[in-house]
């Protein structure tokens, strides 16, 4: 491994051996219906609380990813996982039963990419050979922590995004030169950027400058142009954040207009009336572990840049009228 500024190059090119995802019924009837391993029948799936359901989803996805690769739990060196709730509630209760060494991560909705970067770095440094990076989010647990009770009759503004109910897990392993699995080749660790947006409904617009900062650093450190990648995906900027990112990069001389999409714009259909698209840790996780991973496996996409975007505010910080600090991490995957 070596680094160029904030960008990392993984010389051994760790591979993404398998992925798994699980979503709620609302996500299940969206645009990516065929790309999920399991669609739950309701937002509780037989559990007594939404938090328990979120833990179940995360544990299910981790076990499924390991299962798909025909590995045992004991083959995994470390799990890196996170979610949106206080004290990483969902994650800790999900990992409780796995008996695998665990490191908890919080990067809000950028957690999956943060996990992918760290897992690849540990594998590249030969500290581990099989790692899990996993995240979860749940619409109802997020609503009740960050906003209003779910049955409260409030009107959501058009800028707001819908937290994805789902979980995704990736099994990242040391490179096996015989396999044709997608490889993690490089990545860029983001800086916290805060452009002063205070409206917590406008998380996409708050995060767009962080995504722009990371992308510009990535392109300049690697000395490439956006067209180097077949597709660039951001995690959950939503409809408005996506337009802002394109404009911010255009001002810096990079053209994103042809090979860029936001995962938050890929999950729901327009009829589902989620306003500005999807958000949450699971937004990038369910799209990457399903649709994007399959495109990489089928070689329809050969070079992909995934940019996880996170808004790092808390319910306390916005009540104290603080703006939204945001972060974005990028990871480059080649098939």
């Amino acid at each position, binding site marked *: 491994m070596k680094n160029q500024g904030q960008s990392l190059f993984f010389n051994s090119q760790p591979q993404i051996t398998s992925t798994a995802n699980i979503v709620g019924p609302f996500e299940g009837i969206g645009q990516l219906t065929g790309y999920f391993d399991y669609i739950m029948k309701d937002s509780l799936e037989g559990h*007594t*609380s939404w938090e328990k359901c979120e833990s179940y989803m995360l544990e299910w996805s981790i076990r499924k990813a390991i299962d798909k690769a025909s590995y045992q739990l004991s083959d995994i060196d470390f799990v890196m996982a996170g979610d949106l709730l206080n004290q990483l509630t969902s994650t800790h209760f999900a990992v409780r039963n796995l008996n695998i060494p665990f490191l908890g991560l919080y990067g809000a909705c950028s957690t999956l990419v943060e996990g992918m970067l760290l897992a690849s770095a540990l594998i590249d440094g030969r500290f581990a050979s099989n790692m899990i990076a996993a995240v979860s989010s749940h619409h109802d647990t997020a609503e*009740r922590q960050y906003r*209003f*009770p*779910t*049955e*409260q*009759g*409030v*009107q*959501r*503004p*058009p*800028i707001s995004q819908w937290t994805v109910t789902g979980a995704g897990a990736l099994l990242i392993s040391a490179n096996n030169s015989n396999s044709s699995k997608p490889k993690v080749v490089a990545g860029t660790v983001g800086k916290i950027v805060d*452009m*002063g*947006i205070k409206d917590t409904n*406008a998380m996409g*617009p708050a995060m767009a*400058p962080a995504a722009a900062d990371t992308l510009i650093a990535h392109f300049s450190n690697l000395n490439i142009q956006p067209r180097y990648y077949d597709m660039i995906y951001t995690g959950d900027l939503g409809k*408005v954040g996506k*337009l*802002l990112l394109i*404009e*911010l990069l255009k001002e810096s001389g990079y053209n994103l207009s042809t090979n860029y999409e936001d995962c938050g714009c890929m999950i729901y259909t327009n009829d589902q009336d989620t*306003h*500005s698209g999807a958000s949450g840790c699971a937004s990038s996780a369910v799209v990457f572990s399903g649709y994007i991973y399959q495109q990489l496996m089928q070689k329809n996409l050969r070079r992909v840049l995934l940019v996880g975007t996170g808004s790092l505010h808390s319910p306390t910080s916005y009540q104290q009228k603080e703006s939204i600090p945001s972060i974005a991490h990028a990871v480059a995957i080649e098939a």
Partner: protein
Amino acid sequence: MENQKKQYQQKYEEKYKKYKPSPPLIKNALWAFFVGGIICIIGQFVQNIFIEQGMTIKEAGGPTAVVMVFISAFLTGIGVYDEIGQRAGAGSIVPITGFANSIVAPAMEFKREGYVFGIGAKMFVIAGPVLVYGMVTAFIIGLIYWLRI
């Protein structure tokens, strides 16, 4: 440095405002008008029934509110009131039914944390401020009324 940062933030804020979708004001206002109106018509209907039973207008106020609060709590319980609220906005928040919704919704939501620290403590997270400032306003108006005499 600080100034430059402010300038960047201001420029970005302008950009954001350019793309920010504005709420469909006329559509929202019509929804609020009709849903709010329908709730009031139902309230009037209920009040008339009580008056027909021999109550005065003043006496009928109490039981009418009780019926409206029950209807709202019921609709909240079966998960309908928040759907109405998403369309009607203030139309379903301002009437007493909205107030009932704002108490029942957290009570349902926090039941899983128990009857004391869940329902008991969290029931008024949204309605609480309304009660506090409602009482403060009532006190001030009472004071003005008292001083006038």
